[in-house]
């Protein structure tokens, strides 16, 4: 496999980015990690983890957050994969129109985007009005402030990211390989699953990691669409940090969130199929 060799002086161009990441991402992250193991007098202890992990309230919120992320991610893959595949097959003009449509939600404020869901999922919103007018429901159903509402909001938020990641991965799959598979007798579906999917698996992995991580850590969407009744890890963390001033518990929750996403990401890598090239 060919690797791109960067001449050393040019590698220095990476320096500002690296310094920025070190200062504003890695250093705070290490700080959070170290703090989570510190006791009242600075000793190293697992006490805080024990306290958080044995709290039934935390376990309930953790399972709920995980459940929602595990629902959102596969749906994003199932909806995103065919869309991304189709987009790579279109002419440049058609593709740019579709790309614009995909990117459009990302360019809207998350708060405005989420408030729009209140209008759609509200008691007299479009969904309830439609379902009651066709006789499917006798009375408007409670859609807002439920886990379902959060899942819908998260999907809208992260589906574009999944599609963009997959499009970029599939564009790197050489068309000749697909043609070769078809000419050797593979069906279109077989070619998709046995050629396209393995060759774009890195993109899929990245998409899954981004969507899952985003779903676990999203704050605005669960806060607005779930309200005070449906707590998630991020809204619980906010409560601990900004209401109770319990930074220790908030730190532990942050570390658990990071660990959960790391475990999933590395776990998925184990399932990576053998590459064809």
């Amino acid at each position, binding site marked *: 496999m060919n690797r791109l060799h960067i001449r050393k002086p040019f590698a220095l161009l990476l320096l500002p980015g690296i310094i920025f990441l070190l200062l504003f991402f890695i250093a705070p992250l290490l700080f959070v990690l170290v703090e989570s193991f510190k006791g009242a007098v600075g000793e190293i202890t697992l006490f805080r983890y024990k306290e958080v992990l044995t709290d039934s309230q935390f376990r309930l919120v953790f399972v709920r957050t995980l459940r929602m992320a595990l629902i959102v991610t596969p749906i994003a893959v199932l909806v995103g994969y065919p869309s991304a595949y189709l987009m790579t097959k279109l002419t440049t003009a058609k593709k740019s129109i579709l790309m614009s449509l995909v990117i459009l939600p990302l360019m809207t404020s998350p708060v405005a985007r989420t408030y729009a869901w209140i209008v759609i999922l509200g*008691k007299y919103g479009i969904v309830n009005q439609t379902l009651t007018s066709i006789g499917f429901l006798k009375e408007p159903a409670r859609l*807002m402030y439920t886990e379902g509402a959060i899942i819908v909001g998260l999907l809208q938020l992260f589906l574009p990211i999944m599609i963009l990641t997959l499009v970029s991965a599939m564009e790197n799959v050489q068309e000749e390989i697909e043609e070769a598979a078809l000419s050797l007798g593979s069906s279109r579906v077989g070619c998709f699953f046995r050629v396209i999917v393995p060759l774009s698996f890195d993109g899929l992995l990245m998409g899954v990691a981004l969507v899952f991580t985003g779903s676990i850590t999203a704050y605005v969407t669960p806060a607005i669409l779930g*309200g*005070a*009744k449906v*707590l998630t890890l991020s809204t619980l963390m906010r409560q601990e940090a*900004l*209401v109770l001033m319990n930074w220790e518990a908030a730190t532990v929750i942050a570390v658990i969130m990071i660990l959960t996403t790391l475990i999933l990401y590395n776990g998925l890598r184990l399932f990576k199929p053998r590459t064809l090239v």
Partner: protein
Amino acid sequence: MKKTRILSVILFVLVAVSSQVFAAGQKEAAPEAPGDSMPYKGQELTVSMWGYNMDLLEKNIIKPFEEKYGVKIIVETGNNSARFTKMVARKDNPLVDVALFAGSWAYKAKEEGIIKPYNPDKLTNLSALMENAKDPLGGRYAIGYTIQHLGLFYRTDKVAEITSWKDLSRPELKGVLSIPAITTTYGPAVIYMLSKAWAGDFDATDVGWQKIEELKPSLVTAYNRSSELNTLISQEEVYAAPYSSFAWGTILGSGLPVANVIPEEGLVGSFSMVSIGAGTKKEDLAHLYIDHLLSYDVQMAEAMDLVDSPARTDIKLPPEVAQNLTYGEELISQLHFFDHKKMAEVQEEWIARWNKIFSN
């Protein structure tokens, strides 16, 4: 050699840019010019405050002060908790000169040492305030610059008149009720009022909690911000709810048939408080700003725009304005003011209790 030169250029650019960025945030106050008619001209004053109704706050408070004294007001907006946290985090290097907090947060700010006592001799308008607004926390740590209350509203076309806090448990309110979440300013007050209504005693809070649990199926949601309640009302999701009085103007603006009531157990009162930031280097200017906030003109303008109810006793409001504010003997005599210390002490336990009820 070449590598070192490139590295030096990059580092120089980084240092130059970052020094500019940090210098902008630490602008030194211009020295006072003796004998000048605007002795504070060119100085900056950092005020930590809420962002709700910001356009009106700019018009009524900030702009007139800036124009009168030639001072630039830097506002740091956010809810109580976010601003409190920032001030605690910057305790050793404070930036805030004047801080505005709701009752329990002002108490926490006092405990945390991020606000300091004011000097009554520097506040010409202090004597015009209601007696209990002059020093609500004790030790002259804060002044109640505006009085508020937790009102109770209902939709007149959908719900029969509400006359008691007990009425929140009426079956007709099932699915159309909202209350402030426990983490909000008035969240704990709802527990006290339900305790009073059902057990006759504010301190019988176990009864209040039992009622909260019973109300759970009736709630559309428990709101975290007044703006959230406004949305719920305008979307016709909520027909009755306790609301923060400063949001009443917006609730009326929805155009829906709504009415507010004074239930038989009364309502909850509170002051929004203003304090001097601990460690400020502009103590005189901070006092001047607070005095401006308490002035007749500002308090009148804020009241007329339905932003804040006056803490001054000499403001006379027309009836159509007065009825939408925390104003007048009839209403103010029905308000209960709860002990912030007591509320701060039970906060953690109550939030855990609330989470347990609502997460199951």
